[in-house]
């Protein structure tokens, strides 16, 4: 048995680790990126512009530079200057919108369908082979098919989110519903509760924690997949932004995007965690 740790001590240690990491990074890059480009032909440099002028290699940014850039981006996150130059807040909002749309549609289908599958052993057995085959397919493998049939890149991205978030919710709902304790169902039967009352007042609350676990897994996967999907379809979104900044060789922006993706993913997970706590019950 581990002893409980006080929160402030853990926080302090976290801060120390962060400081060490950023400090090492900063110091390691001190003095680098200068004087490396002696052999570059000036005409070639003039042709290629800034990147080549600084020595053929974009220097890895220091944390202090990333911090300055982060402040710059966050001080005006929602600007729109043409299709290829929009604030980071806008990009995150696009990605969030797609994730919530795809995830929401998946939930609307997976939860009722999972309910039916969980209640009916026949349907469970009949649909299980399809689910087992489709579930391990990488969501990005659906992308060409989606682009071909839907013919709209943005909706295709939403579809990919939909298809990747449906399976954990479907399987967890079906499992949660089928695992509802026999005695609660017997109570409902002896009280002549009826199908709908039993479904909504007994089975749903009994299975809610399992369903929420499925939703939590789904939203995590959806947030992972949206970055890759947006890199493919382009246009808008944080994934596209990462790819765009890679093409611009703005390494600092890529680091910032990684940080933003992590923070938004954390927030999504925490949100569903709160919801899960609200429906949790203890025997």
């Amino acid at each position, binding site marked *: 048995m581990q002893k409980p740790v006080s929160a402030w001590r853990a926080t302090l240690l976290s801060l120390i680790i962060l400081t060490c990491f950023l400090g090492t990074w900063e110091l390691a890059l001190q003095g680098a990126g200068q004087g490396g480009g002696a052999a570059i032909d000036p005409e070639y440099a003039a042709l290629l512009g800034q990147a080549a002028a600084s020595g053929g290699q974009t220097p890895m940014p220091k944390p202090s530079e990333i911090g300055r850039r982060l402040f710059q981006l966050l001080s005006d996150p929602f600007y729109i200057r043409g299709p290829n130059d929009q604030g980071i807040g806008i990009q995150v909002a696009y990605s969030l919108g797609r994730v919530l749309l795809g995830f929401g549609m998946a939930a609307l289908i997976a939860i009722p369908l999972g309910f039916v599958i969980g209640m009916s052993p026949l349907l469970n057995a009949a649909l299980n082979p399809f689910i087992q085959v489709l579930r391990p397919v990488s969501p990005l493998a659906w992308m060409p098919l989606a682009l071909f049939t839907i013919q709209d890149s943005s909706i295709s991205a939403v579809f990919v989110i939909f298809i990747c978030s449906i399976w954990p919710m479907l399987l967890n709902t079906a499992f949660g519903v089928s695992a509802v304790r026999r005695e609660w169902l017997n109570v409902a039967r002896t009280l002549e509760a009826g199908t709908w009352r039993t479904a909504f007042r007994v089975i749903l609350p009994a299975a809610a924690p399992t369903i929420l676990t499925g939703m939590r897994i789904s939203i995590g996967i959806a947030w992972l997949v949206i970055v890759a999907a947006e890199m493919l379809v382009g246009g808008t979104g944080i994934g596209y932004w990462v790819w765009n900044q890679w093409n611009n060789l703005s390494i600092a922006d890529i680091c910032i995007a990684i940080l933003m993706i992590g923070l938004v993913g954390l927030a999504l997970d925490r949100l569903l965690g709160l919801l899960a706590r609200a429906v949790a*019950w203890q025997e």
Partner: protein
Amino acid sequence: MSKPYVSVEGISRKFPGLTVFDNVWFGVNRGEFVCLVGHSGCGKTTILNILAGLDAPSGGVVLADGREISGPSLERAVIFQGHALMPWLTAEQNVAFALGCKHKGWDAGRLRDVARSALEKVGLGAARAKKPSELSGGMKQRVGIARAFAVEPKMMLMDEPFSALDALTRGALQEEVSRLVTEAGQTAFMITHDVDEAILLSDRILLMTNGPMARVAEVVINTLPKPRVRATLHHQPGYHELRDHIMDFLITRSRSLAGVAPRDYDPRHPPEVSPAG
């Protein structure tokens, strides 16, 4: 003799190659408390589930009020062995859920008030807002009892309702049930292992032989005067004869009588005995 409220007519439970019980007949009259005593594996719980409508016999029928039981009904409430409370609802909401199933038109306020008074009847007025996980085993079973009585069933079915409780709690709850049954003139059928419980509560005790091929070997008439109180029950004349008779049955005769019934055994009228005189 008037027709019994519940009439069990020749029910059996058979699996391929195994007959748990066969051709079981008995009746439960209105206002009567009948206990079924027997060892594990004789199909006691199956019989109770058949009475509740949760299970169907392989053969034979059960009539309630002259009509065949084909499924569960609000007229026959069950107090389950485990309390079977819904853990996401408070004690009051658990009772209110049952009330809402019976009285579809009641609003939330009325359900709450009636559930509250049902809990007060079992001494749980103060714990009404607690979830089952915050209640002790005895309190949980009290909520289960309150829930079953709240729907005012015509018959109460109890499946070893106190077997999971410690002796002190069990005694208190037995008196509670005894009081509630007497107050309501409740028809009741109970399965138990506990001989004293059967003597305290029942008017008749059905003794079942061990399975397979279990049968009601004997019907013991409990002639001890009512109301019975646990504190003085064992001083009543006839108590020890009654208790010894049932104990003898459970320890030896349930085994020696098991298997094929003797030739003079009439399954419709198992021998009746009154050991207490």
